[in-house]
């Protein structure tokens, strides 16, 4: 009964969010995010109908739609790159390279892990493992992007901040819950049934509040005519730090 109620509330909130986005023309501003949300709404309604009309087809369809939505969830990363980092070429480049490094590391780990692990997971946990790994990679990517945005003190704006927080809460919770699931914790079923949908409801409420109207990040800072280019800026900063470190290290030894 609780699950059904959460399901209905989620569909209602998603519909309100989409309706509001169409009305305030946010769909055109954040196409990847609303593509993801539209897919979630369609999947939710379809799954609800299937669960009533053809319950035996529900598990397979549920897995397929979840994979689709996980892939479309990467659209949120695209929105961040398009709306936040694109205004700061330096920070964007840093995030891109760091993301690539993380991707290569994750890929190496994924290739190496089967060689050292005890064996393939049991068949009924395999799906949870794949879903968990997909979400974990997404979490790592977002982690890197948070780092870059915070380090360079970039204002993401209310819309994108809400988008990130809403999705992030669901993502972090899902990774933890699926980790418990893939380790065959006895009460996993109960935890997942309640915690994941509740975190998703929280995400929807956050999105509804943050995406009620268009609120982009503050205007790009004026591009002052810097006399020195990046190389000289970084060079002079590095030189200064090097001198300071050497002096302070010598001082500390005194």
């Amino acid at each position, binding site marked *: 009964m609780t699950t059904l109620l959460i399901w209905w509330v989620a569909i209602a909130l998603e519909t309100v969010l989409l309706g509001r986005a169409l009305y305030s023309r946010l769909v055109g501003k954040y196409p990847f995010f609303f593509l993801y949300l539209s897919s979630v709404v369609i999947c939710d309604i379809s799954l609800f109908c299937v669960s009533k009309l053809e319950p035996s087809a529900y598990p397979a369809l549920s897995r397929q739609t979840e994979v689709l939505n996980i892939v479309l969830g990467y659209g949120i990363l695209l929105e961040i790159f398009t709306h936040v980092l694109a205004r*700061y*070429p*330096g*920070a964007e*480049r*840093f995030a891109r390279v*760091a993301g690539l490094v993380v991707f290569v590391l994750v890929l190496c780990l994924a290739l190496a892990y089967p060689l050292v692990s005890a064996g393939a997971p049991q068949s009924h946990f395999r799906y949870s493992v794949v879903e968990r790994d997909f979400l*974990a990679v997404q*979490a790592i990517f*977002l982690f890197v992007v*948070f*780092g870059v*945005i*915070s*380090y*360079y*003190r*970039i*204002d*993401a704006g209310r819309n994108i901040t809400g988008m*990130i927080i809403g999705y*992030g*809460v669901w*993502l*972090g*919770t899902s*990774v*933890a819950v699926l*980790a*418990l699931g*893939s*380790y065959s914790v006895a009460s996993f079923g109960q935890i997942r049934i309640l915690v994941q949908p509740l975190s998703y409801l929280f995400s929807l409420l956050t999105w509804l509040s943050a995406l009620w109207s268009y609120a982009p990040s*503050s205007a790009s*800072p*004026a*591009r*002052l005519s*810097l*006399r*020195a280019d*990046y*190389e000289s*800026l*970084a060079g*002079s*900063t*590095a*030189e*200064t*730090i090097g*001198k*300071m*470190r050497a*002096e*302070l*290290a*010598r*001082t*500390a030894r*005194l």
Partner: protein
Amino acid sequence: MIQLVLYLVLGAAFLASLYAFARRSASAEGGAQIILRARQALSALQADLLPPQVFERIFANGDYRYIISAGDPALTAMFLSERRKIALSWVEQIRRQIVSLREFHLGSARLHSQLSPRVEARLAFEFFTLLCVCRFLQLALYLRGPYAAPRMVGRVVAVASRVCATSEEAMGFLSAVKVDRLAGKSAHKMTAL
């Protein structure tokens, strides 16, 4: 089991970083503000914190000798305690100004499309270690008192002066006229608010 712990740690770390992200202040946003603050940091360092008469006054041995000559242990203890507070506050001010100068570097670097991630990563590490060293100096002053390490103070002053010189060069494009204009804009905005 290790795998489970790793994923749980990842989930928890991610949620913690999300919380930090939600609570972060975006007040450093805006090129003009960063440059103004960096400029103010430079002025504070050059005019208020680093001139010899300031730190020589704070760490003057003459005062200490005079208090000792009075022969009152309670008075000496109180004097040392007060002087330590002033010295710690002085180092803290220097540390804060260095943070402002770092913000200036970040504010400028994020706009450069030629930014080198490797160089930035190295600079981030070096700024971090530098600020840690400042903390170490504060600890040394706290533990050993303001008169225990006069050479250390001299070194800090010398290094901070060099930072000022380099930063001033990096901010050379910002003439006094532009600073006044930016300051005027900020003041006007504040009045409007």
